[in-house]
């Protein structure tokens, strides 16, 4: 059989999205986003240390509304990656691999991440900080 004729598993594009696969790739996406968030954290710390003018400039950048939207989405990325990371650690202990359990823990992660994000957004918006 030539390489081109081998039977293939279904392509990603025609495979029905399932909570398992969607949450899995989301963990990777949010992880990549949080890597960018690390650079932002470092920028924030460096601006704080650099002086009054530098911090005012950084606040100008971070306070611009498109950046603010990204930061707010970043809060969800943080809590999602945190919750799903705990799910991964649970799996690492060798537990929770039955399909029903995997689906249930997936929904728990999703609901927890949304709830924590709303809590954080609520505190941020009411606290007058951001």
């Amino acid at each position, binding site marked *: 059989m030539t390489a081109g004729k081998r039977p293939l598993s279904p392509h990603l594009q025609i495979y029905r999205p399932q909570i398992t696969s969607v949450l899995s790739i989301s963990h*990777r996406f949010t992880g990549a986003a949080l*890597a960018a968030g*690390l650079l932002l954290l*470092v920028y924030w*710390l460096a601006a704080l240390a650099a002086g009054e003018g530098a911090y005012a400039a950084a606040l100008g950048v971070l306070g611009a509304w498109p950046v603010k939207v990204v930061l707010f989405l970043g809060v969800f990325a*943080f809590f999602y990656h*945190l919750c799903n990371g705990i799910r*991964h650690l649970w799996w690492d202990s060798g537990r929770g691999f039955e399909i029903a359990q995997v689906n249930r823990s997936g929904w728990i992660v999703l609901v927890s991440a949304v709830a924590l994000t709303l809590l954080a957004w609520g505190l941020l918006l009411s*606290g007058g900080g951001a």
Partner: protein
Amino acid sequence: MSLRTPLSRALGLGSAGDGTAHWWQQRVTAVALALLGLWFAFSLIGADLGDRAALLAWIAQPLNAALLVLLVLTAAWHSQLGTRVIAEDYVHGALKVPLLVALQFIHAIAATVGVVAVLQIAIGGR
């Protein structure tokens, strides 16, 4: 009959040569980041980001400075491990090695700049 040499079996490092080191470091930093991340997130939420003097005073407290240094270093290491896996999965050919090196450089610089900034604030009289 196994084709593996006795030495290879004794070392137990597998075909990639580094065993479970990457996997284990990812897990240990994950546990640390779950704690440090929650501490930082909820500290930040209560703070007024516009008040530089108050933020500096908060960072200058020894416990906060220590936890921030840990956060920056742990996050940089965890991120370095994770972005490396993503790059290795999707990028092949001539771009692969330069990208992996660039990721290492970016993370090393981020970790260093972050730690220096915290130390400047904590003990440098900023």
